[in-house]
C-alpha cells in the first residue's frame, strides 16, 4: 500500500511525471482496445482496403489527438503563445520545448496500436488479400476467371467460412503469406521507432544541452506558477465567501437588533484571519481587474525582496497590483550559468 502511495505521489509531483503516467496508461489502453475490438473484415472487393487501412490508420490518429487533449499543458502552451507580451518577454525556445515534449508523449499510444495491428496481421490480410500473387502461390491451371470475378473470390480470403476459391488458391497459403509480410512490416516498424527514440535521446545532450536546461526550467516554472495562481484564487474565494456570509449574518442581526432593541453581536475571531487572506481585494470589480491583468500583463520574472516596510500590505513577491503600471519593454531575463 505504501508503495502505491509513493508511486502516486511521485506521479503527482509535477505535470511531466503525471503526463508520463497518463501516457503509460494510454499505451496499455490502446493494446487492450485492439484486443477487445471485434475486427470483422467485410470480404467485399473495394470495402476490404478501406476497412483494413482505416483500422490501421484512423485509431492511431485518434489516440494521438487524445494524447494532446488529455494533456493539460496544451492549454498552457496555447495561453503562453497567445498572451499579450505585457511586462514579461516570450521565449520561443520554451514554447518549442513544451510542444515537442507533448508531441513525443502523444506519439506512444499510436505507435503501440500500429505495432500491435501489424504484428497481429488481420488488417493487412484484410486490406491486401486481393493483391495476392496468384501466379506464384495459386493454381495457374485453373480455368480463367474475369478480373472482377477473381477479385471477388480473393476478397473472401479472410472469411474462411464463406471462401469459395479453394481450387484457385488455398486459403491457408494466402493467409500465411499475408501474415508473414504483415509481421515483417511490424517488426521493421518497431525497430525503426526504437532507433529513432534512441537517436533523439542520445544525440540531444551532444548538441543543445544548455538551451535544453533553460527551456525545461522555464516550462516547469510556468506550469507551477499557473497551479499556484489557481490555488491562491481558490483560497481567496474561500476567504471572501466566509467574510461575505459572516457580514450577511451580521447585517441581519443588526436589522433585528434595531427592531428588538438588544445590542448586536461582534464578529468572532476567526473572521479576522479570513479577512487577512483577502490580500486587499474586497470586491468583485477589483477581483475582475486582477484576473484580467494576470492575463493581459503577467508580472516580470524579477522578484522584489521585502527590504523596506511598505504601507499598503503589498510587500510580497510579484503580486499583480490592482492597477497595473505602464508596461516597460523588457526582454526575457533568463540567467544561465553556462
Amino acid at each position, binding site marked *: 500500500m505504501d508503495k502505491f502511495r509513493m508511486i502516486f505521489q511521485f506521479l503527482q509531483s509535477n505535470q511531466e511525471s503525471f503526463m508520463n503516467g497518463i501516457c503509460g496508461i494510454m499505451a496499455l489502453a490502446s493494446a487492450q482496445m485492439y484486443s477487445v475490438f471485434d475486427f*470483422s473484415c467485410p470480404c467485399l472487393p473495394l470495402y476490404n482496403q478501406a476497412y483494413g487501412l482505416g483500422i490501421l490508420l484512423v485509431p492511431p490518429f485518434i489516440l494521438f489527438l487524445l494524447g494532446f487533449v488529455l494533456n493539460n499543458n496544451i492549454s498552457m502552451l496555447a495561453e503562453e503563445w497567445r498572451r499579450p507580451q505585457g511586462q514579461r518577454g516570450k521565449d520561443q525556445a520554451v514554447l518549442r520545448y513544451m510542444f515537442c515534449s507533448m508531441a513525443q508523449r502523444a506519439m506512444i499510444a499510436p505507435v503501440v496500436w500500429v505495432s500491435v495491428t501489424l504484428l497481429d496481421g488481420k488488417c493487412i490480410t484484410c486490406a491486401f488479400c486481393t493483391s495476392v500473387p496468384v501466379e506464384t502461390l495459386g493454381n495457374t491451371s485453373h480455368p480463367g476467371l474475369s478480373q472482377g470475378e477473381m477479385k471477388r473470390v480473393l476478397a473472401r480470403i479472410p472469411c474462411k467460412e464463406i471462401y469459395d476459391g479453394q481450387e484457385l488458391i488455398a486459403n491457408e497459403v494466402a493467409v500465411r503469406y499475408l501474415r508473414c509480410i504483415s509481421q515483417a512490416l511490424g517488426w521493421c516498424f518497431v525497430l525503426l521507432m526504437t532507433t529513432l527514440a534512441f537517436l533523439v535521446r542520445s544525440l540531444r545532450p551532444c548538441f543543445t544541452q544548455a538551451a535544453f536546461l533553460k527551456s525545461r526550467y522555464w516550462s516547469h516554472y510556468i506550469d507551477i506558477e499557473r497551479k499556484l495562481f489557481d490555488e491562491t484564487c481558490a483560497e481567496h474565494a474561500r476567504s*471572501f465567501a466566509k467574510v*461575505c456570509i459572516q457580514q450577511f449574518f451580521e447585517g441581519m442581526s443588526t436589522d433585528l437588533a434595531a427592531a428588538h432593541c438588544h445590542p448586536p453581536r461582534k464578529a468572532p475571531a476567526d473572521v479576522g484571519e479570513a479577512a487577512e487572506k483577502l490580500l486587499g481585494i474586497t470586491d468583485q470589480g477589483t477581483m475582475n481587474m486582477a484576473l484580467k491583468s494576470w492575463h493581459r500583463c503577467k508580472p516580470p520574472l524579477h522578484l522584489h525582496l521585502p527590504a523596506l516596510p511598505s504601507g499598503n500590505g503589498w510587500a510580497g513577491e510579484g503580486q499583480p497590483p490592482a492597477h497595473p503600471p505602464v508596461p516597460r519593454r523588457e526582454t526575457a531575463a533568463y540567467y544561465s550559468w553556462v
Partner: protein
Amino acid sequence: MDRFRMIFQYFQSNSESVMNGICGLLALASVKMYTCFDFSCPCLPWYNMAYGLGIMFVPPVALFLCGLILNRQSLVMLEEWRRPQGRRKKDLAVIRYMCSSVMQRAMVAPVVWIIVTLLDGKCLICAFSGSVDPKKFVGFANASLVQVQQLLAKVPCKDDELMRNNTSRKTVSRYLRCWSQALGWSILLILIIAAFLARWLRPCFNQATLLQARHWSNYIDIEQKIFEETCCEHSRLSAHKCILHFFESMRQEIKLHSFSLPREGEGAEGKEDLLQGITDQDQVNKLLKMWYYEKPPLDVSQV
C-alpha cells in the same frame, strides 16, 4: 481499501475533480451496462428497426439525464440563473460557463454508449438488415419481394433454421458490421478533433473573460457550501441552546418545589456569540428567505 481511499481523496480535492470522477464512473457504467445487456433482435420486418434504433438512442438519453442529475453544479447553475437580482448583479458569462461545463460532462456517457454500440455492430445489423439492396448479395437476388424482406429480417438471428448455414447471411452481416464500425470510428474521430480544436483555440479568444467566469463560478460553488456549513453550525447551536433552556426551565420548576439544586455553569453563554442574535424560528426563516431573495453584494470592504 486504502487504494480506494487515496483515489477518493484525490478526487475530492476540489469539486471539478469530483465531477470528472463522476463523469468517468458513468462512462464505465455505460460500457458495463452494454456488455451485460442481452441484445436480442426480434428478426421481424418492422420490429427490427424500432428495436435496433431504440437500443441505440434511448439509453443515451437516460444516461444524459443521469449525468445532469448527479452533477451538483447543475443545481447551482439553475439557482444562480433563477434567483432574483437583489443587491448582486447577475453575470451571464458565468452562467454560460457553468452551463457549458455541465453539458460537456453529461455528454460523455451517452457518447460512449453510442460509440460502443456502433463498434459492436449488433444494433445496426438488426436495424438495417431489411434495408440492404438484395441484388448485391447472391443468396437473396432471386426471391420475391415479400420473401426477401422476411429473409433479410432474419439475418441478425444466427440460430434460425433458415439462416443457420446460409453464406449470404454472413455476407450481409459482415457488410453491415463494416459500415457500423466505420461510422463509429468516424464519429469518434470527429469528436476528438472537435475537443482538440476547442482546447487549442480557447486561449486565443477572450482568455481574460474565461478566467473571470471560471473564478466566479468556483466562488458561487464555495459560497453555497460555506453557507450550508454555517447554517448547520447555527442550527446545531440553536438546538443545543433550546434543549438547555428546556432543561433549565424544568429545573426551575423543580427548584420551586424543592430548594436544593446548585446553579448551572456559564459554559453555554460563550457559544451565544456564534448564534449572531438569531434565536428563534421566525428569525431563521427570515434569514433563509433573505438569502434567496437578496443575496449580499460581492463587496466585503467594510471588514
